[in-house]
């Protein structure tokens, strides 16, 4: 049995480089492993970046990075690939069931490298 954690005690407040910005496909996600924490990073059509937890709170599987990116009433979203619930990329809240949410993480680009902070 594996243990899943949301935040890694090792990365305390630091920015962790993840990949070159150019490696991210527009409107698609990628998963990153930061310590023991799985982060789904997304690049939207307009070039904005978002980072949320990679674990789908409905199925428990670490798959959020593989969902379809879109918008709902203008808000950037990702749909879980497992059962299609739609989450806000801004707040992490599930728009179909606000009782569920994924964590969100700060994300930025430094010298062409995408960085996230999971502390």
């Amino acid at each position, binding site marked *: *049995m*594996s243990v*899943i954690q949301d935040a890694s005690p090792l990365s305390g407040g630091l920015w962790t*480089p*993840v*990949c070159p910005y150019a*490696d*991210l*496909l*527009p*409107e*698609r996600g*990628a*998963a*990153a*492993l*930061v310590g*023991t924490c*799985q982060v789904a*990073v997304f690049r*939207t*059509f307009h070039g904005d970046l978002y980072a949320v937890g990679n*674990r789908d*709170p*409905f*199925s*428990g*599987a*670490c*798959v959020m990075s*593989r*969902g*379809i*990116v*879109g*918008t*709902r*009433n*203008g808000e950037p*979203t990702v*749909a879980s*690939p*497992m059962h*299609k619930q*739609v989450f806000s990329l801004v707040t992490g809240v599930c728009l179909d*069931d606000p*009782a*569920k949410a994924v964590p969100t993480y700060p994300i930025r680009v430094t010298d062409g490298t995408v960085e996230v902070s999971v502390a």
Partner: protein
Amino acid sequence: MNPNRLVVVGYGPSAHRLVEAVRAGGFEGGITVFGEEPRPAYDRVALTSYLAGKSVEDLTYPAPGGVTLRLGSRVARVDRESRTVITASGDAEPYDTLVLATGSAPFVPPVPGKELPGCFVYRTIEDLDSIREASRSASAGVVIGGGLLGLEAADALRGLGLETHVVEMSPWLMPRQVDEGGGAVLRNHLEALGLIVHVGSGVRAVEAGPDGRAARLVKPDGEVIEAQIVVFSAGIRPRDELARQCGLAVGERGGIAVDSGMRTSDPDIYAIGECALAGGMVYGLVGPAFAQAEVAADRIMGGSAAFEGADLSTKLKLLGVEVAQFGETQFRRTGPGQTPGVLDVTYMDPVAGVYKKLFVSDDAKTLLGGICVGDAAPYGTLRPFVGRALPGSPSDLLFAGAGGVQADLPDDAQVCSCNNVTHGRIRTAIADHGLTGVQGVKDCTRAGTTCGSCVPMIQRILVTSGVEVGKALCEHFAHSRAELFDIVRVRGITTFSQLIAEHGTGRGCDVCKPVAASILASLGNGHILEGEQAALQDTNDHFLANIQNNGTYSVVPRIPGGEITPDKLIVIGEVARDFGLYTKITGGQRIDLLGARVEQLPQIWKKLVDAGFESGHAYGKALRTVKSCVGSTWCRYGVQDSVGLAIELELRYRGLRSPHKLKAAVSGCARECAEARSKDFGIIATERGWNLYVAGNGGFTPRHADLLAADVPTDVLVRTIDRFLMFYIRTADRLQRTAAWLESLDGGLGYVREVIMEDSLGICADLDAQMDRHVQSYFDEWRATLEDPEKLRRFVSFVNAPGTPDPSISFETERDQIKPVLIPLEAVSR
């Protein structure tokens, strides 16, 4: 002040609604629910659909968050002194507030033989499982009770292929809902369907056969009904045993007495649903149970809601016959007890089997109630007007249904009785949230989510609110899929960006993107993972594999027609062994390898492609398989080479993207071993050629395919299938299989025949050319992916650690193969 420990006994629809309501209302204490059944609460109203193929999961309500569920756990005692409930296995649970939601139990009359094996009731999934099991060795069944539930049970027995009898004590069927005239019309319908109806009859005994199981039922007049299955459905009895045990007040004829706040004689204990006696009534319908749950929830949180009684209207479709009753209908029309001040207007067409009656006040101004059999159209439109001014002349209303309604619906009229939603609430929701369809209204108000009979009325309200119903794909496109298809085809659009910029708004979503991806692919726009197209694909298409419950993928190589050489079988075996994959023969005559991690997919497919395999498109809305039987090459009955044709067709249509998946089969003779008539297109060999059947379906709503062409030679057959498929791809809705598409077409099969065989629209040359283009431009998606480093880049577990397997994936062993270890949901939801 909120009490902090809420305990609920019973986990049926009413308990589920209560728990949802207190959670939504911000209740902060702990909630423990005890359910005697081994599974979470499910939609009992839809129980019969379970026998028609719905899964338990389909019926199960979504799990409420933050609730401790104790399933398979019956509460045996309530100790009011210490405020504790004690389960049958002796566990104790303290409460501050207790809710009894124990429902009811079917009433089994004291008939000799009622305990024999073969005797059942009809209330739970387990009951249905037992009945289904017993039906395998039975030829006839009898239902005791011709009310609403009894006829549902009869429907189920008939669906299981049994000769079905119904025995009803009253002089006509469904005496609580319809009058004698309606009962007679209903009986005609049921008899025409082969049911055997015995009205005005009780039961003397159920007798056993030599095997000790029920074998026959004896009526009081001595008549014998041979039946190996007996289902008792003679009413329900509230389950008030806990209330009796702990000394709460109960009604004379059963039911836990409650006040209008659903409180029992102990102020800390509430009772809701079918176990409660509210205002002197035990309600046997889910709508009142929901309303009571909402009232109790409000009271528990300090509110003052009250249950003021509920509408007993019902509408159902039984064995294809619509039956409905609304408002007040139990009037004596003639004789000494005639109800004063009531007029009735009846319309009856015995040939069509339609019976409709309205009750109105004697000044013909106020609608009191109505009964419908055979055509329940007036139900949806008229029920909200009960007790109000008649919205048109009675005869117009009976004939024209919604068309006859001239008046506007008042805002306080109840539209959805299951969920107590008024017209005003729906209108406001439409205006405030800019709703454009029934789904939106359901999401916002819950109206229409239970029995569905108010959906036509919701549609009408959408129309009167100025909403154009239905066709918009999603918030980004006002077009239907068929319209988008034409736009893309005619304007030669090749990218989603161009399509949404010119014809939509925003940047799309998980609904419109896969639709656009599919349209672009159907029209032959190269590799689905090429450039911008990649971002449109559903996760399955994006990884050219099907996602599984633990985030791993399945690998399904194409095995055309189900024919495979020993060498290829060995390669599949080797790949599965080397990568440790779970292996299974699919229902589509090929082999599924499961448990592949995303980064393993290219390595696995490299081996398979090198051995001559191709993608099986199990992940795509595309052609899946063309199944075959062995046919004339080996079978002593075969009249044509079914395997050869199946392979030819599978190779022709492989990779063809469509609104939904496409399945096919070819049988070598009329014995139909390939099950061709349950396929989107199915072919059965004849002495003179092939019979082509189209628009069949297994799945949720099985449908036998219709004969489109008979005794045709192979070249004509293939051209006809080409055109059928292309016409479907052009005009169907998103996720609409051929069966639903055909049924939605005006003119149905005749129309399709005109278009593709008589070229009535002059598009056949176009359809042919489009299919030829598809056939010529086919290539294997997996081979092309392996050859392109750009496309391979996505097949990594982590961008920053491409070789590290996802640590959340693990397996255990079952029957010598791997099985996913799922992360328990408690660890996930907080």
